[in-house]
């Protein structure tokens, strides 16, 4: 297999032209998010460039401290992003979400790297990209799950009040909302699994094949990572909400939403 073609920087710049199409469509549909598009594109470019530099350095000078620091930074950022998308939840709930995201994400990463791949957890070549995928997906899942949960309990305030007034326990009232949010957060992953390999060659596999890995190996990695993503999404959303919903009522079973 041949080595991947390095991108010429000027040819590479052509890809940004595609953003003009997005811009035109946004204008046409009166989507007032031009600033967001520019900011998102810019941040994406800058953040990835920075990550590239840092990764180059870490891969050349591997040290457990670097890998660990990268992992922690990534986890911290994932927690920050999730919470900044769900500002309205109470402080205890936020702490629970933070712990759930960190603990479930890191345990799945450890299981994947140490048990399934079978390399040292501090090996940056494996741990950094794989934990990025796992923790990133946990973040998306928890953000979505929390948003759905919050929107639902706010729009169903009347149902909640009515049930509480007649002596239904807050647990019994809120659990259906938890279940529904876990389901909603899990569905995108499940749907993408259904089309995988036929309508899409997922990112990790694409990357590995481009860089010359045998498709058979790439496929095994891909299957493993998708299952890990499915598990981490399910687990992180479940823990966040299942422990988090209990912060919505006090000892007197009075609710504050």
């Amino acid at each position, binding site marked *: 297999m041949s080595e991947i073609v390095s991108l010429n920087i000027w040819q590479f710049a052509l890809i940004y032209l595609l953003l003009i199409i997005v811009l035109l469509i946004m204008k046409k549909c009166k989507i007032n998010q031009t600033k967001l598009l520019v900011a998102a594109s810019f941040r994406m470019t800058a953040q990835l460039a920075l990550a590239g530099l840092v990764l180059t350095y870490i891969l050349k000078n591997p040290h457990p401290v670097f890998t660990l620091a990268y992992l922690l930074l990534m986890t911290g950022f994932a927690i920050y992003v999730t919470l900044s998308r769900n500002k309205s939840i109470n402080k205890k709930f936020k702490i629970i979400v933070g712990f759930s995201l960190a603990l479930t994400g890191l345990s799945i990463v450890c299981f994947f790297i140490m048990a399934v791949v079978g390399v040292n957890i501090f090996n940056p070549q494996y741990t950094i990209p794989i934990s990025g995928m796992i923790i990133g997906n946990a973040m998306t899942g928890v953000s979505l799950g929390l948003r759905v949960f919050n929107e639902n309990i706010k729009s169903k305030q009347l149902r909640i*009040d009515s*049930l509480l007034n*007649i002596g*239904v326990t807050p647990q019994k009232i809120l659990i259906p909302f938890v279940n529904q949010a876990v389901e909603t957060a899990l569905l995108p992953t499940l749907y993408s699994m259904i089309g995988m390999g036929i309508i899409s060659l997922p990112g990790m596999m694409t990357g590995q094949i481009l860089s010359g890995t045998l498709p058979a190996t790439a496929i095994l990695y891909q299957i493993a990572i998708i299952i890990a993503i499915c598990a981490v999404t399910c687990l992180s959303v479940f823990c966040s909400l299942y422990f988090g919903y209990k912060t919505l009522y006090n000892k007197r*079973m009075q609710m504050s939403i």
Partner: protein
Amino acid sequence: MPSLFSLKNVRFKDIIHYPDMEIPQGAATFICGESGSGKSTLLKLLNGIVSAETGEVLYSGRHIEDYDPVTLRRDVLLCGQSTFLFDKSVQENFIEYYKYRDLHPINQDKINTYLKICAANFRLDALCVTMSGGERQRVFTAICLSLRPKVFLLDEPTSALDDMTANTMMSNIKAFCNENNITLIVVSHNRALAQAYADNTIMLAGGIRHE
């Protein structure tokens, strides 16, 4: 009549200062007053949906905070002003609410009895989503009453009803509560209703407000 609830020096969120009051057992007490005087909040204090910051609320001589809150709400049941019904039939709504309360659903005859008390003579398979606000309110009231609380708290039960329906429902509910020794506490701004059905009336003034 022995007193069932008694309030002493009760303040809520520094906004509402309730006068000391006694609410008798087995009677129909109406709570009247302007909007903002804390009528609905008073009902919520009585079944522990909210707690008073200061002062004490006694139920059967014991501090309300000493009761298990969920058991208390089953005994002192609040049928709120805004009603929630599932997008299902009348009978299925009874079933849903009973499921939430961990109770076996009652049979159709009994459902019809409670609907009749609340002047809600609808077919059991009628869909609640197509009903008017007043109709939904009566179905909801029937469900609440059928749960057979010891104290039935009603918040503006007739706000969406015409006078005739309101009178039918109130007189039926009062008769039912009398027969079954259920204490009835009703918040209403409808003075005529209070005059007709109250054994006891509590007037809440504007409350003492702190600016």
